[in-house]
């Protein structure tokens, strides 16, 4: 009986650790286990990592839990905007984040979270056009509008992401990618309808694999995937379209009713440490907004214009913000487009 009790208590100690554990809710493959292990080693705080595959499912879960089930999440721009407006986020205490100063001021104070009251930039990048120059000439794809050329009939890869696809069409028409105007969204739909014959497939989760296996020859792609393809296919090129790229950023936030907000601050600060941010950025293959970490990067990666685009490209790009109830208009036209 005593032995049983002992075994039970040992089991409990193993299951719950000595102290509380941070519950982290993030994209799959977005945080390196090595980084989390080092955090646990240095602080004695365990981290339980649960992953999600879309902002939408992350939002639904946090909403239903009333922001109470997790201590840290990594939403994209427009969901930070939405969650912030709906009071789902914990406001951040910068005093608990001494490493905040390492962040590039150009990546702070964005329209989706003015003053970074609720979010800390984690990684960022662009969406542009990827093209296999063995199949198409580079000068044929310099702008988003070039994707409509008949030469691409049945060849294009597009993300299976409603906002992103409409963003491109709205951009070409000279509107904001965050338009809430039904007439503008409608004209974007009319334009996209003409793109349909060129589309071979919609896919968001394996763009790099599709290029490397020869299934896609041209299409819309994010720069992290483009960087990975280039390592395997030298003929692959990434183009930042003339009309301006789509900017994206994923940031760390603490849900409103997080049980361990203070510990979550400690983890955020740890992730902002230059050596840790560098490790994460190199493993994930995307740009870090951490200036001190960039200094530590391999010069080859730092100088790669695909991962770290020059200033003039970034300043012409646009982030996605929340469009409120207009999202139903987008969905309606998206479904029309696909049922065409």
């Amino acid at each position, binding site marked *: 009986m005593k032995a049983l009790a002992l075994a039970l208590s040992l089991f409990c100690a193993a299951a719950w650790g000595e102290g509380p554990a941070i519950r982290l809710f993030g994209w799959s493959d977005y945080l390196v286990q090595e980084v989390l292990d080092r955090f646990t080693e240095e602080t004695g705080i365990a981290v339980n990592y649960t992953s999600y595959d*879309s902002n*939408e*499912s992350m939002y*639904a879960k946090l*909403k239903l839990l009333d922001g109470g089930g997790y201590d840290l999440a990594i939403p994209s721009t427009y969901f930070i905007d939405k969650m912030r407006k*709906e009071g789902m986020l914990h406001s951040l205490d910068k005093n608990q984040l001494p490493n905040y100063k390492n962040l590039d001021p150009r990546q702070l104070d964005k329209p989706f979270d003015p003053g970074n009251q609720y979010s800390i930039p984690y990684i960022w990048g662009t969406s542009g056009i990827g093209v296999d120059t063995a199949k198409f000439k580079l000068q044929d794809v310099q702008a988003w509008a070039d994707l409509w050329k008949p030469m691409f009939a*049945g060849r294009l890869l597009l993300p*299976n992401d*409603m906002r992103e696809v409409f963003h491109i069409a709205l951009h070409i028409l000279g509107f904001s990618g965050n338009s809430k105007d039904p007439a503008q969204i409608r004209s974007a739909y009319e334009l996209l309808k003409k793109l349909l014959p060129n*589309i*071979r*497939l*919609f*896919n968001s989760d394996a763009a790099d694999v599709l290029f490397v*296996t*020869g*299934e896609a020859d041209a299409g819309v792609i994010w720069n992290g995937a483009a960087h990975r393809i280039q390592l395997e296919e030298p003929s692959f090129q990434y183009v930042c379209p003339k009309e301006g790229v789509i900017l994206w950023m994923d940031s760390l936030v603490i849900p409103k009713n997080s049980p361990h907000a203070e510990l979550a601050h400690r983890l955020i600060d740890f992730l902002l440490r230059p050596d840790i941010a560098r490790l994460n950025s190199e493993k994930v293959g995307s740009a870090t907004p951490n200036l001190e970490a960039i200094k530590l990067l391999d010069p080859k990666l730092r100088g790669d214009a695909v991962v770290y685009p020059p200033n003039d490209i970034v300043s012409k790009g646009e982030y996605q913000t929340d469009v*409120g*109830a207009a*999202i*139903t208009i*987008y*969905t*309606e036209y*998206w*479904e*029309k487009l*696909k*049922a065409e």
Partner: protein
Amino acid sequence: MRQGNFFRTSVILLLSVWLALFVLIPNLLVLAASFLGRDESGFINLSPGLGNYLRLFDSVYLRVFAHSLWLALLTTLACLGLGYPFAYFLAQFRTSVRPVLLTLVIIPFWTNSLVRTYAIRSLLAARGLLNNTLIALGLIEEPVRLLYTGSAVLIGMVYILLPFMILPLYNAIEKLDHRLLEAAADLGAGRWRRFWQVTLPLTLPGVIAGSLLVFMPALGLFFIADVLGGSRDLLVGNLLKDQFLDARDWPFGAAASMALTGLLFLFLAAYAYSLERFAVEDRP
């Protein structure tokens, strides 16, 4: 005796509680939601109405439903065309070999169907096994575009659902009384006539059961169209996902889901009716 009753009662009770908790209540919740309105920050609001159901009659959604039905029908016909001869020949083997062969039909079920769909993708890919073989044999020079086409979707659907057709067909064909076929032959009926007038009518319950077992899941499967068709087709399953996650219009998604459930009930009712008819016909 009493103990047996107790066991039976507790099993039935457990199952009923389980079904009520995880099937009935969730479905009632979906049903209730389908009559409410969308809310930007809370998923549903209390504004009851039939609007969600009326919206289903929009031409886009009718097209989505029609497309799903068409794909399910094609899949069923293809499975029937392949499954019938398959089950027929299976039933001709010696009784000792049959269980082994049946096990071979079932083995693919041990792997998750999503994983098997990805396996098909790598078979059909531009630099996949099939294209590489054809190129190595010198039959083609450039890889054929097989993936992300309508045929790829159909191949995937048929592959995943074929066992559901084979098993009930085998069951029906195996039970076929060979004396009836011999009698037909003695009376001068040819091979085809024996098949059309004896074998087929007697195995029809298997055909109907198999078709239903293929048709109903085919109506709801959408990941095959996503993985092998490149997400270009919008099926009912995609519609539900889009409404629940992207548009966050839970009430409309719930209405669409109820419409799908209703449709499936309709097919089940038709099946029950056909069974009854067979039962009546069987009586001398």
